[in-house]
């Protein structure tokens, strides 16, 4: 008896390991592109800013917002027709192959416009593959999980998106440190892309050895596989209404909480608070390390108390806490005010002279490094334009603050606040795979759960930076105005979830 239990446990451990490793690699592949976008732009795109921006827009917007949901439909349908195992194996091959090939594309100086067009095509394949991967992995694990432990087992899949981000940042930082900044910018940036193929081969080998989901195998043996999963998912009212409630009552709010905690926080610290490049990344890395176990804690807890209120509490806490948290970020980095009373020392000014791009005017930048009594440092640059046209209006001297480093106390506090935001991510994201799996019947589960997930995460979440910037451009806006988008969407999703969703924990997914 003990031996049988041990075999079952081992088998489930293998299922989780095989599924999670593959999904982690897919997220890694998706994120390294984003993390290396600047270098890719320099190496593979034309120097003409306009053309570059156009191709970038297509790569970012189309891959994230159109191709991902489309991939969910294409591979979801395939997964419900031929099985989970072979479908998410296919997505892994597509993702790994396209990532590897991005690392091999010759530079723009060698092959001209073929380089950015190849990047665009491969990025679209990445988006397509990502759209198909998650639903397959979550369904596969959930259909293996024992009764009463579905939240716990699927929560391991939920850690992979965050760990994929962590791994991508880690590999990039490590490669850059080993090769040096110049070599990394010249050719070393290709290594994180090429390394992916090794990870993918290992993952494919492991996945090949796994069996098909027992629930799907049984369905297939009984000849009950859906003939048209798309039609059954979206034309059958009983199922379509569940797709809608999953989207508006859960995944939409989850998406914005996810992106705000892990991307907007870092971007806000770097771009709005002018925090030092490395410091903003280290803050995120520390927060991820400490918060990641909470995916499993909340996933497991949802097996006992239900999925609904854990997810909705995460959204509500986001609605209530985002503005005070980001206000603290602004206050803790307001060096303009602090230096009036806390200035300890100033470095000798460093003067740099240059030209204004596309003009004959000269640019003089004078930079002073300042230290405050609390240990904070920052650079203050005065940028002066010397125009040759004697009749032209003399431009005002601009003062720019950059490379702010925090005092120890503020540093710890900012890590804690980013950690708290990622804990909210774990609350909304940890139980959601089990929640989605239990919402739909086996025949159309892959298709039905993939679409709301990728619209919620990819579209609503992926638009956080764009819409936050849009709101910040409105007249009378403040640096915190961009937060109204995630706050509004999370609040809306909370209301819909609270009113329309059941707090069920389905013991049986053999339906």
């Amino acid at each position: 008896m003990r031996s049988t239990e041990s075999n079952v446990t081992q088998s489930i451990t293998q299922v989780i390991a095989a599924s999670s490793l593959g999904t982690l690699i897919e997220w890694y592949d998706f994120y390294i592109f984003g993390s290396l976008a600047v270098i890719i732009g320099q190496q593979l795109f034309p120097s003409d800013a306009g053309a570059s921006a156009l191709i970038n827009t297509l790569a970012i917007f189309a891959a994230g917002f159109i191709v991902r949901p489309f991939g969910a439909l294409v591979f979801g349908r395939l997964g419900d027709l031929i099985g989970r195992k072979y479908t998410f194996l296919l997505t892994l091959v597509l993702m790994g192959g396209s990532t590897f090939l991005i690392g091999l594309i010759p530079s723009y100086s060698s092959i001209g416009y073929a380089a950015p067009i190849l990047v665009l095509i491969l990025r679209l394949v990445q988006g397509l593959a990502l759209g198909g991967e998650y639903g397959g992995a979550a369904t596969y694990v959930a259909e293996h999980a024992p009764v009463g432990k579905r939240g716990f087992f699927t929560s391991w899949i939920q850690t992979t998106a965050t760990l994929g981000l962590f791994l991508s940042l880690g590999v990039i930082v490590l490669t850059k440190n080993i090769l040096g900044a110049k070599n990394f910018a010249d050719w070393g940036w290709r290594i994180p892309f090429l390394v992916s193929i090794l990870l993918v081969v290992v993952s494919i080998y492991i996945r090949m050895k796994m069996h098909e989901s027992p629930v799907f195998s049984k369905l297939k043996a009984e000849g009950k596989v859906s003939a048209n999963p798309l039609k059954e998912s979206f034309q059958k009212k009983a199922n379509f209404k569940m797709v809608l409630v999953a989207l508006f009552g859960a995944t939409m709010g989850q998406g914005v909480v996810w992106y705000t905690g892990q991307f907007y926080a870092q971007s806000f610290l770097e771009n709005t608070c002018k925090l030092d490049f490395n410091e903003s990344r280290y803050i995120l890395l520390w927060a991820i390390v400490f918060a990641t176990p909470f995916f499993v804690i909340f996933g497991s807890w949802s097996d006992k108390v239900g999925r609904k209120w854990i997810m909705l509490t995460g959204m509500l806490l986001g609605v209530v806490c985002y503005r005070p948290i980001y206000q603290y970020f602004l206050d803790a980095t307001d060096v303009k005010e602090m230096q009036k009373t806390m200035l300890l020392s100033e470095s000798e000014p460093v003067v740099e002279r240059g030209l204004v791009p596309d003009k004959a005017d000269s640019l003089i930048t004078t930079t002073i490094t300042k230290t405050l009594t609390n240990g904070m440092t920052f650079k203050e640059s005065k940028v002066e334009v010397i125009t040759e046209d004697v009749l032209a209006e003399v431009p005002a001297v601009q003062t720019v603050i950059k490379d702010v480093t925090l005092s120890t106390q503020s540093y710890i506090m900012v890590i804690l606040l980013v950690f708290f935001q990622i804990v909210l991510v774990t609350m909304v994201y940890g139980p959601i795979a089990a929640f989605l799996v239990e919402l739909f019947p086996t025949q159309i589960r892959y298709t039905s759960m993939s679409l709301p997930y990728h619209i919620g995460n990819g579209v609503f979440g992926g638009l956080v930076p764009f819409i936050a910037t849009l709101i910040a451009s409105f007249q009378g806006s403040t640096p915190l105005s961009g937060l109204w988008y995630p706050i509004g969407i999370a609040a809306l999703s909370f209301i819909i979830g609270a009113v329309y969703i059941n707090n069920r924990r389905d013991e049986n997914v053999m339906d």
Partner: protein
Amino acid sequence: MSGLKKILGLLWIVAGPVIIIFLFMQAADKIGEAAEGIARTNTTLQWAIIILIFIPICTGLVIFGYYAWKGEYDHLPESSEEL
């Protein structure tokens, strides 16, 4: 709770078209503000993709509201047998 679900359903029905109109107004505004040439093409492309994506999502919100108004969410499946 059923009454609340129905009343909110009307709100979702109205919200769908309102969001689309708002997006069209924003798109016209931002495209108009963009400089001539590739910058304007780029802004137009961004907004075209956003509107293309949000039209079906907002249609979904209207259908969700309609289902709520018709009482489709008064009872949701409690177990897999009801799926």
